[in-house]
């Protein structure tokens, strides 16, 4: 799981692993991270991406998927 900007700061890392299980969704990854130290600062429904595409929390994950949690965008 990739973390960026404020979310990386909250969790103290830009990249971490979450134990996988069959039927796992993006929302399960978010819940696991919110239970980590510093993770309570993450919103319940952050913007997420799977394999470089925005994905809803219900999006199912397959082995090898690249999951990313994206803080509110501030480009431009």
């Amino acid at each position: 799981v990739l973390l960026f900007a404020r979310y990386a700061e909250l969790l103290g890392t830009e990249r971490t692993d979450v134990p996988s299980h069959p039927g796992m969704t993006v929302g399960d990854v978010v819940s696991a991270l919110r239970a980590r130290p510093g993770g309570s600062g993450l919103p319940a429904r952050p913007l997420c991406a799977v394999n470089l595409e925005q994905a809803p929390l219900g999006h199912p994950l397959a082995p090898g998927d690249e999951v990313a949690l994206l803080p509110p965008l501030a480009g431009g």
Partner: protein
Amino acid sequence: MTHLSRQPLSVEALLAAVRDPSRGAVAIFVGDVRNHHGGREVLRLEYSAYEPMAEKECHAIIEDAERRWPVSLALAHRLGALEVGEAAVVVAASASHRGEAFEACRWVIDEVKRRVPIWKREYYADGTVAWVDPTASSGVVAAGQGMAP
């Protein structure tokens, strides 16, 4: 083409990329680093990105715009540390008609703000640091001083 750059952006280079003797109109947008935000004096800032996704989104925005209008487009966004007054983003759009050039240029910068995964950390004159968050009522969320993600 790569749309993300850690070097200063060149407006002339983006203009040259879209200029075409068969098209007479070029509209350009330049977004500069402002010296203030939310009433606080900004000294400098730092842009970071989810780089492969940001490149992909920039590319998709240009493809979408070129499908929507008869235009040729160029887009560059700066990453890393920027001083006040430096260009953070440049969009150039050439077309046969100025209306199309203006509309496409405006649409591209709006889409960049809406969907490209880029983040901005501002350093203020009072020593504080914040993440810019357009969804927060104050527009920012306090940040740590240290790590540069």
